[in-house]
């Protein structure tokens, strides 16, 4: 309980597109400038910059010296944060720690990605996935793309709990219902369970409609101390809790029921810091790059019992009007895939009450998740429009 840890006072977007609209660096600059403007600041008011990017994009796409492009004064905090899909959420955590310890007074965190090419070859997303622990072992079996490990995990989940294709379909449909209300979402055409079950497999048991919709774009947020939170034009969004969890071993053990993912540790830490439990969460913004992952996260963060997320979603609880709105912008599946900044930005929009047609009736305690690897790396935030959660 007590006072919040930091506040998000600026949010900025670049253009988003499936076409080539500029380099990763160009997009990052556009998002940072928009976020700084949104906070009512000038670049020289910022003294911290934390950079995140896809772990499969070249490091030189988004270097530290991007600071030279922006007109910042000498910075007090500057780093590239890299924890695969958990990076953006972790950057907000690191910014918060710096703000609390007077290592910075206003920090901008950015994620940018420009890997989608208009030929739609998907080549940038076709890397070999390492699960066994022996370098390149998987190449001889064709385990390509992030989807491979998640298809293995999804199949195991189905066998363990009796979950079905329809459970994954229900999740994808719920996200599309939210996207219908979001003009920024890329995929807004409604589909039925019948449509879902007739759609094409990518890697069975996952279909095209179970997969994130990758775009080129960037998102940035500006954070400051909670003492200064009221000095900005937009309603502040407070950070109340944060946690990380990283599984002991990477790869296969992350799919293994005996070792589990890093989620449990991240959840326990974030809830404890916020002084609440999962029962107090009334909105989730999750890193749901695959429908199966969305269900798994609802269970791993204590919002549903193990094996029950499919039924929970099918009953409509996560859909518009439900008691636990989940991924209110359409998430990764129907909105757009910009890794951890997809859930972060939607949480800020909802907490500001700026969701327009998709604004949920309640968002007092929002769980935001980022995760990466094969669910190896987890980071979580508890955000709220309120200074106190009690």
């Amino acid at each position, binding site marked *: 309980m007590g006072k919040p840890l930091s506040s998000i006072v600026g949010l900025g977007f670049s253009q988003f597109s499936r076409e080539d609209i500029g380099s990763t660096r160009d997009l990052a600059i556009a998002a940072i400038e928009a976020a700084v403007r949104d906070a009512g600041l000038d670049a020289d008011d910022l003294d911290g910059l934390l950079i995140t990017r896809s772990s499969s994009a070249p490091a030189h796409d988004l270097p530290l010296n991007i600071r030279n492009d922006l007109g910042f004064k000498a910075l007090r905090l500057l780093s590239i944060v890299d924890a695969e899909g958990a990076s953006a959420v972790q950057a907000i955590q690191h910014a918060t720690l710096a703000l609390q310890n007077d290592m910075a007074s206003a920090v901008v965190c950015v994620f940018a990605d420009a890997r989608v090419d208009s030929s739609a070859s998907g080549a940038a997303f076709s890397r070999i996935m390492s699960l*066994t622990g*022996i*370098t390149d072992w*998987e190449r001889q*079996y064709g385990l390509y793309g992030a989807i*491979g490990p998640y298809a293995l995990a999804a199949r195991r989940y189905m066998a363990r709990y009796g979950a079905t294709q329809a459970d994954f379909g229900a999740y994808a449909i719920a996200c599309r219902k939210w996207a219908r209300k979001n003009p920024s979402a890329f995929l807004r055409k409604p589909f039925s369970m019948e449509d879902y079950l007739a759609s094409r*497999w*990518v*890697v069975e048991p996952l279909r095209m409609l179970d997969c994130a919709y990758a775009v080129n774009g960037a998102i940035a947020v500006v954070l400051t101390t909670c003492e200064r939170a009221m000095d900005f034009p937009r309603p502040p969004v407070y950070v109340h809790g944060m946690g990380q969890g990283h599984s002991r071993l990477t790869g*296969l053990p992350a799919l293994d029921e005996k070792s589990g993912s890093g989620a449990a540790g991240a959840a326990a830490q974030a809830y404890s810091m916020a002084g609440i439990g999962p029962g107090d969460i009334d909105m989730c913004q999750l890193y749901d790059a695959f429908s199966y992952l969305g269900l798994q996260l609802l269970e791993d963060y204590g919002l549903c019992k193990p094996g029950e997320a499919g039924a929970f979603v099918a009953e409509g609880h996560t859909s518009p009007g439900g008691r636990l709105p989940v991924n209110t912008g359409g998430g990764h599946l129907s909105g757009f895939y910009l890794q951890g900044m997809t859930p972060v930005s939607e949480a800020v929009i909802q907490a500001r009450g700026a969701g327009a047609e998709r604004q949920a009736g309640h968002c007092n305690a929002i769980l935001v998740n980022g995760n990466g690897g094969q669910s190896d790396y987890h980071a979580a935030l508890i955000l709220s429009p309120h200074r106190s959660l009690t």
Partner: protein
Amino acid sequence: MNRLDSCASPRPYSGFERQFLSFIDRGELRYPRNRLTGEPLGLMERAASRTAHIEWVMASGKASLYSFAIYHQRYVAEFEPPYNVAHVELEEGPCLISTVLTDTPRLLEIGMPLRARFEPGGRLVFVPA
């Protein structure tokens, strides 16, 4: 040319990996075991393998299907879909990624018994037991 040389994107192999792959190149599926406790070590457990006294034990070849994924989309030219990627659990405990050779992929089922086999080219695969 053995597996260590033929890797498409050469990256440094650790001694641990070289050991495992040198057995594979001889057509032997071996797994690391803690010599003192008799506990089998996963192929990911590098730290344990560095500190513990390990021995490389011949696996029985008996295994079960922990999970599987069927690729319907083509990612690279060499792999014609549909094909399966299998997460296999050896009866001794360690897990690895492989594939199940079968004429009836529709009958793949989690928990089904498998047996290890080396293809003529030296690739480790599994077949229904």
